[in-house]
């Protein structure tokens, strides 16, 4: 690690005085396209939200149906992110450290929620967890838990869509951890549990936190997979994105804009924190 550090610093200095052409063209095109597709439309939302005025904004934000939908969206996303963090770290660990038949297929399957359209996932989960579905009936018989058309169903859908984030952020960091450090800890007499909690876990922590935040952010905004498995009744399992769609169908643009703004502000704050964590983890561990 110490041998590569000065090398990396040198390439960084070299890149600053780059001889490569295309800086003007690529920065011009990138910023123009970014502005046209993303920034200007988003600014439009901000502008619309600003014209609402505080009174109207607060009135919409503290409407009981809106707060209930926001609570469900953020609460279910939080719960799903916690489950995904625990099992995501477990899956990453098993994929990186152990060799067993079918490991490569399992590794590929982790990305399934990225590639499978949310509507497809939605009808599949709704069929599985419906009261007469294969999983739904079993859970009801064994534990008396009703998943389909309840807020538990919302959590199950969010676990599905958020699962790859923790695995895919933890996996590369786990692969890079120097086995020698673990061997040193072991030869110095550390028990395996102590090595895992005090040597490996601190190195993984920023990645785990990032994966948690990404999974959470994805869950908050999720729509397609949830609306099939939830009952979508107000105060029961109506999520915030669905409420936006309902307000739009009622031509209530102000209501839709206000809810969207609240969700966006929280999501952007999350993204900002994620980037801070990533920058900090790079400083602490010196890789990537």
């Amino acid at each position, binding site marked *: 690690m110490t041998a590569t550090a000065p090398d990396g610093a040198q390439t960084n200095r070299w*890149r600053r005085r780059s001889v490569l052409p295309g800086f003007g063209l690529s920065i011009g095109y990138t910023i123009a396209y970014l502005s046209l597709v*993303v920034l200007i*439309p988003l600014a439009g939302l901000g502008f619309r939200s600003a014209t609402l005025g505080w009174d109207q904004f607060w009135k919409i934000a503290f409407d009981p149906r809106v707060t209930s939908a926001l609570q469900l969206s953020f609460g279910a996303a939080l719960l799903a992110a916690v489950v995904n963090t625990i099992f995501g770290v477990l899956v990453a*660990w098993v994929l990186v450290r152990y060799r067993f038949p079918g490991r490569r297929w399992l590794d590929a399957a982790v990305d*399934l929620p*990225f590639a*499978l359209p949310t509507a497809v996932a939605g009808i599949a989960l709704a069929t599985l967890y419906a009261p007469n579905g294969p999983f739904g009936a079993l859970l009801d018989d064994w534990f008396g838990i009703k998943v389909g058309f309840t807020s538990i169903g919302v959590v199950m859908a969010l676990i599905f869509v958020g699962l790859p984030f923790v695995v895919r952020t933890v996996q590369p960091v786990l692969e890079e951890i120097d086995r020698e450090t673990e061997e040193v800890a072991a030869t110095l007499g550390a028990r395996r549990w102590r090595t895992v909690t005090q040597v490996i876990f601190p190195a993984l922590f920023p990645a785990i936190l990032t994966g948690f935040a990404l999974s959470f952010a994805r869950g908050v905004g999720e729509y397609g997979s949830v609306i099939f498995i939830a009952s979508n009744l107000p105060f029961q399992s109506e999520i915030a994105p669905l409420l936006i769609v309902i307000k739009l169908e009622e031509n209530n643009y102000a209501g839709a804009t206000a809810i969207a703004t609240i969700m966006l502000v929280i999501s952007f704050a999350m993204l900002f924190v994620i980037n801070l964590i990533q920058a900090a983890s790079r400083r602490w561990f010196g890789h990537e």
Partner: protein
Amino acid sequence: MSDTQSAKQKKSARLAIGEGPGTKLVLIIAALTFLGLMLIAPLLVVFVEAFGRGIQVYLDALALPDTAAALQLTLLVAAIAVPLNLVFGIAAAWLIAKFDFKGKSFLLTLIDLPFAVSPVVSGLIFVLLFGANSALGPILDGYGIKVLFAVPGIVIATIFITFPFIARELIPLMQQQGSSEEEAAVSLGASGWRTFFQVTLPNVKWGLLYGVLLCNARAMGEFGAVSVVSGHIRGVTNTLPLHIEILYNDNKAAAAFAVASLLAALALITLAAKTVLEARFAGSLAAQRRH
């Protein structure tokens, strides 16, 4: 005596580095069970429900005229959105991987913005921009251009949703590869375009292909944003995912799953391509590190 002691020490050292076979087995079974229940079961359900009522029901569902129209629209939308985001992805990756400038990390954050926006909110911003009581909507309407509840709106919303995919795949790859090969080419007199097509592109082609596949899968599968801007006009503004919703809500579950199986197959192809490409990548990246 000393022999057995050192053997004991060796054994304990080995145990402290890895987990015992029992722990290992428990962890593997726990991970397999979780992935099996949460990921594999939903995927199996799609195909079981699609083919469960026989192949004829499956083919009949796909032969519905609305299904053909939805498939055509989905292909058209992807054919416009993916190339546009491909050009952007290459420009952004060249800028970020090959040059150092102030505000680079801020630019990266901006590129990631669509990931942080709920699909429904993404649709909403275009409703606000092109809707009846917006600034742009009535002007475009005057020229006879309909964006909202028409194909252009679906295309624009899809471009927004899939905007970061290719850039996000290319940037880390090009950063890892550095720019020494390009610098050598330029110093030997090659033009910028020639350097790009003959040096950079061959180095990143597999990463680029995977980025395109992922972007395409998302473009064809997007639901929330497209649902908001489409207006759900059957046979006109219904993409495959919206068509699935309509069939499902019409209690035509078998037909819904038949259409869903097409998109699930696309997802499986994307993942299979990724697995194959990663096996190839690993080799080329390892070769890069040896330089």
